[in-house]
């Protein structure tokens, strides 16, 4: 059977939560696909639905009070909507792996690091104890933990933040994933460590040939690491395209606003322009374009929800005025 060109395909994903304040629509119809080996950035503010989207790809959302619907939701050829628990478990940590934002909180504090990585290894590879141990040490070394034989016996709190994230990456690699989902992996780290982690990720991507879905709110990271970017707002993707195209000429006012609010070293110092207003609350029902209240270019047409239209050769935006906006 020929290998699929895409590692993930999502069509019209909708996720809602039941909350005390009503039903919160976290994801309001998201579609995208990830091609083997590519690095895609999923960008948005907190509350945009990006993390929920990522968790949906691994079906890691809680069962209670959550409604997940999609016309298509397939990862590594497995249809997540109908997959059995066993299939899901084989997928998670195996062909599809995820690393999280806060490495200190994501590692079990009462277990040794080597054991936690080893657990992932033994879950997804047929390995004897000694083989697994060897693999663990190898993985730790590969992600840059010095003296791995000794340090495998240490506990998470004995490592620095950057090292903990490396350990998480090691755990993710244990099953030789073809898709790595990274949810804000460096938000909790300082800039220097950030850079190191991304260098590591890029190296590994080249070495293992895996696709990376990077969730972040930081466009500068996207510029560094990703080839393609999806911009989310209020549960929808409002612009997508290659990094080159988007950064050169963002078509959606929101994307433009995001870019404008990043301080740039290569440009003369100027006032930072934030996007006015606040992000949409997930429980609000929205008529028309969700960005409208904050959009400097809002017009009457915006009372109707725009869909993603092709704007340029490598770019799509969901805005009625996309062609006019610089």
């Amino acid at each position: 059977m020929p290998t699929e060109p895409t590692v993930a395909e999502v069509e019209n994903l909708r996720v809602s939560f039941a909350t005390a304040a009503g039903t919160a629509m976290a994801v309001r119809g998201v579609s995208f696909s990830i091609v083997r080996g590519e690095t895609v950035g999923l960008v948005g503010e907190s509350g945009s639905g990006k993390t929920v989207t990522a968790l949906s790809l691994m079906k890691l959302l809680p069962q209670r009070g959550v409604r997940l619907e999609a016309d298509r939701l397939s990862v590594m050829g497995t249809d997540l909507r109908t997959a059995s628990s066993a299939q899901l478990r084989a997928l998670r940590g195996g062909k599809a792996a995820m690393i999280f934002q806060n490495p200190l909180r994501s590692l079990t504090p009462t277990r040794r690091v080597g054991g936690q990585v080893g657990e992932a290894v033994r879950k997804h590879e047929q390995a004897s104890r000694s083989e697994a141990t060897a693999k663990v040490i190898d993985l730790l070394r590969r992600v840059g933990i010095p003296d791995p034989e000794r340090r495998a016996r240490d506990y998470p709190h004995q490592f620095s933040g950057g090292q903990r994230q490396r350990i998480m990456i090691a755990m993710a690699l244990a099953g030789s994933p073809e898709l790595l989902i990274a949810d804000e992996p460096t938000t909790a780290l300082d800039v220097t460590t950030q850079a190191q982690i991304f260098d590591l990720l890029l190296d590994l991507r080249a070495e293992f040939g895996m696709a990376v879905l990077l969730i972040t709110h930081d466009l500068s990271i996207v510029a560094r690491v990703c080839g393609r970017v999806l911009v989310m707002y209020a549960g929808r993707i409002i612009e997508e395209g290659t990094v080159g195209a988007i950064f050169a000429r963002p078509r959606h006012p929101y994307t433009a606003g995001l870019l404008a609010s990043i301080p740039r070293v290569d440009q003369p110092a100027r006032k930072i322009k934030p996007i006015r207003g606040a992000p949409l609350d997930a429980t609000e029902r929205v008529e028309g374009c969700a960005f409208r209240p904050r959009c400097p270019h809002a017009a009457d047409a915006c009372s109707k929800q725009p869909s993603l239209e092709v704007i340029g050769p490598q770019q799509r935006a969901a805005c009625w005025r996309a062609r006019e906006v610089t």
Partner: protein
Amino acid sequence: MIWYVVKRVLSAIPTLLVGAVVSFGVFHLLPGDPAAVIGGQGATPAQIAAIRHNLGLDQGIVTQFVHWLSRLAHLDLGISYVSQTSVTTLLAQRLPVTLELIGTSVVIVLVTAVPLSLGAVRPGSLLDRAAMAWSILWLSIPVFWLGLLLSLFVSVEWGLLPASGYVSFLHSPIQALRHTVLPSITLGFYLSAIVTQYLRQALLGIMEEEYIRAARAKGLSEREVLLRHAARPAMIPFLTVLGILVGTAVGGTVLIEAVFNLSGFGQLLVSAVIARDYFVVQDGILIVVAAVIVTNLLVDVLYAVIDPRIRYAEHG
């Protein structure tokens, strides 16, 4: 690790001393002249003075304290004025009763609370709701009322089990068991309610931790996640509640002993306070204080065994 234990033990000693001071002080805070109370209604001033002298109450406070401490060091606990027996004898009679009661109650707690609290793993499930109902039920019903009702129905009406009295396990296990059932259930259910509440909440908290989610992301089954990633951290709140349980249980035995007419330590302490029985009060309170301190110490040490973060806090 050893260091940690040593440090904890050492720091417990001053606390113990403070406890001793408090135990001593309590008695002297009680209003009224103890000698007069002991002497009773018709005591003459001379008799009262004699009692005072016997108890050493006519000496300075500090002197009395020192005397008491030195006698303790020789394991001489003094005489109970009320019953004219040595405190040691009294304790030997009474403590086992209380300890057995607490022991069986704890068993009941463990048997009920642990399985029930596991309902938190699946919030809203039948087990979970049963756990909540269980804990609210036995918390609201006053312990002594429950005891009353139980002895009323099970003993008086139906004649199934004895309503009072005590038989030591060492003498006759079967009889002992029959006598213990009602009191232990009464105390045990109440304590179980507390533990269930607490454990349930703690477990809920743990299941929402990010490392649990990360463990699932590795492809582990729920069972594996529970056993390997949730169980150990759950031990910490478990220990905490066990520690507190001891204190609550001691208080509880006072009531249970009253309802079921058991001659236990709790009753001893209560009547001693009322009767101003000098040595019994002081020694008794000291025992309680010491028990609490020792329990806390044990709990702290066990924490360190379970949670490496605590262990390594010393060297970082």
